[in-house]
């Protein structure tokens, strides 16, 4: 082993391979030094790992969604740069020096807090998923999109740090008639949702940090509500105002939108909880199989009602199931990873996963949901996903 005295790095050259027995060019040279990127970015080799949108879904990118690349993600933390987006009037550029949080209504001491003020209160951190209730909503009538990212990528998970609403409401002195809370954003949609006080005092936080650093603009910088386990839309971003009231406000997002239309013409409102759901992330349409052999079927599961208790996997379209291994840590209202070993013989297969949460709720099939709710309720489609495996290893989105 060794080069020639004459030239430094004599084996460097365009036609060279970089694997054994060759010594790669990056081992025979110096890389750029520290603080080349004072704020780091992914390797250029990862440039395909990005949020993507579906142009035909929405009228404008300013009122639209982008999907997290679940096919590339590991573990339970979604890196901040890949957290899914949902804006109703674009992503405002809020100046944290000028931004304020007003808390008023049925309170003794209406106050205005600067972002510095807010960060002085006792804080908590919690790892919670956020899911848009429209996640997968384009598939009620049939299979449309052949991609994990577009089918399920409106869910992400982060460690949120902020102040409990209960701390803030105690500070302003809530009046006993205060039964509801209105949360309002500072974006162009001035996004609003009514939240019942019981939930507000339970586990809701005003978050200013996401995975250790300040919230990203796409997630509500400088502050947002985190309403663990509830519809993503309730996690009001760019939060500017909290009003305590005695009744819900029946805002546009809780009447015209985010209500579930049934086949008989009635509609269900205040369907806040994201019921338990799971999906196999590997294999998936973007990550096909490469020949028969041993695979670890892997995926994510979550429940808006608490912890994931178990996940089962079927390779025969739901006829038979085997319990998967849950990966630590299993936390309440957080993504949980599961996996199950599978020796693929190269024959066609229909892969499914099915979560059971700590309330005993078993993830339903799409047929069951359709029977109960028809095909026009848009939101809360937490049905079992079927991936069709073909002999060439391709994986397709199908319905059974």
């Amino acid at each position, binding site marked *: 082993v060794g080069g020639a005295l004459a030239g430094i790095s004599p084996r460097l050259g365009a036609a060279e391979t970089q694997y054994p027995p060759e010594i790669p060019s990056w081992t025979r040279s110096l890389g750029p030094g520290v603080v080349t990127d004072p704020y780091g970015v992914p390797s250029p080799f990862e440039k*395909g790992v990005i949020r*993507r*949108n579906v*142009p035909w879904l929405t009228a*404008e990118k300013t*009122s639209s969604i982008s999907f997290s690349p679940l096919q590339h993600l590991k573990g339970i933390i979604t890196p901040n740069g890949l957290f899914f987006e949902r804006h*109703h*009037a674009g992503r405002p550029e809020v100046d944290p020096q000028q931004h304020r949080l*007003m*808390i*008023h209504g049925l309170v*003794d*001491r*209406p*106050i*205005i*807090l600067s972002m510095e*003020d*807010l960060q002085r*209160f006792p804080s908590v951190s919690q790892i919670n998923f956020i899911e848009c209730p429209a996640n997968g909503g384009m598939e009620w009538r049939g299979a449309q999109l*052949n991609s994990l*990212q577009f089918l399920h990528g409106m869910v992400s998970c982060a460690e949120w740090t902020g102040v409990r609403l209960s701390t803030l409401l*105690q*500070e302003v*002195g809530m009046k006993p008639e205060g039964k509801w809370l*209105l949360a*309002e954003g500072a974006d*162009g*949609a*001035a996004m*609003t949702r009514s939240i019942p006080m019981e939930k507000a005092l339970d586990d809701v936080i005003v978050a200013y940090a996401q995975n250790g650093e300040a919230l990203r603009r796409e997630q509500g910088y400088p502050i947002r509500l985190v309403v663990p386990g509830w519809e993503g839309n309730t996690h009001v971003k760019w939060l*500017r105002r909290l009003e305590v*009231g005695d009744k819900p406000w*029946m*805002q*546009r997002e809780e*009447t*015209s939108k985010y209500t579930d239309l049934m086949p008989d*013409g*009635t*509609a*269900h*409102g*205040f*369907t806040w909880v994201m*019921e338990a759901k799971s999906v196999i992330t590997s294999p998936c349409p973007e990550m096909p199989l490469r020949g028969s052999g041993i695979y670890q079927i892997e995926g994510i599961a979550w429940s808006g009602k608490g912890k994931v208790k178990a996940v*089962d996997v079927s390779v*025969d*379209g*739901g*006829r038979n199931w*085997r*319990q998967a291994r849950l990966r630590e840590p299993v936390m309440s209202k957080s993504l949980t990873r599961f996996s199950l070993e599978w020796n693929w013989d190269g024959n066609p297969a*229909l892969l499914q996963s099915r979560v059971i949460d700590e309330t005993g709720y*078993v*993830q339903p099939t799409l047929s069951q949901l359709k029977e109960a*709710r028809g095909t026009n309720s848009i939101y809360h489609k937490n049905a079992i996903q079927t991936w069709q495996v073909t002999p060439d290893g391709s994986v397709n*989105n*199908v*319905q059974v």
Partner: protein
Amino acid sequence: ESAGYYGYGEPATKEQIAGWDIDVRPDGKGLPEGSGTVDEGMNVYETYCSSCHGAFGEGMGRFPKLAGGDGSLTEDRPEKTVGSYWPYASTLWDYIHRAMPFFAPQSLTDDQVYALTAYVLNLNYIVDGDFVANKETLPKVKMPNEDNFVWEDPRPDIHNERCMKDCRDTVEVTDSAVGKNLTPSTTGPLDKGLTE
């Protein structure tokens, strides 16, 4: 700890609250002084709204329809509009005032918002052409679909046993995304949006 224990921040003054407290409830709480007629609304609508929502609220491209769809909620393709779906008129005032026109939210006067509310309600045959919207009249408008809302979550609506063996007889693929040509690229650069 008691209220004011930390003492951070500053008291919100009446004026400051008034500047930000824009929400309106079905009972009318939050509606300001002012008023607007259907005719006034038509003018404002033509200036600021029709380019996206169509001259009669029929929608444009994928911009929302604001009128029509009556009786469609039980059909195969329901059209959920202010008239066919929205339970409360207050929400219309509130939403136009806070969020429209799309490119310049909170730029309209309260009178303009009253007028637009009257106009959109009239487009939906919910109020007559001589309707004057103000804080007295609006809470009294009964929306056609109000009583079809259930404000309680009926879920869990599916109760499954955790079957492990021989849970179903046949499995038939009823639909597939293959070949539908609806999936944007999942590698390389982003697909260009159709609207750009």
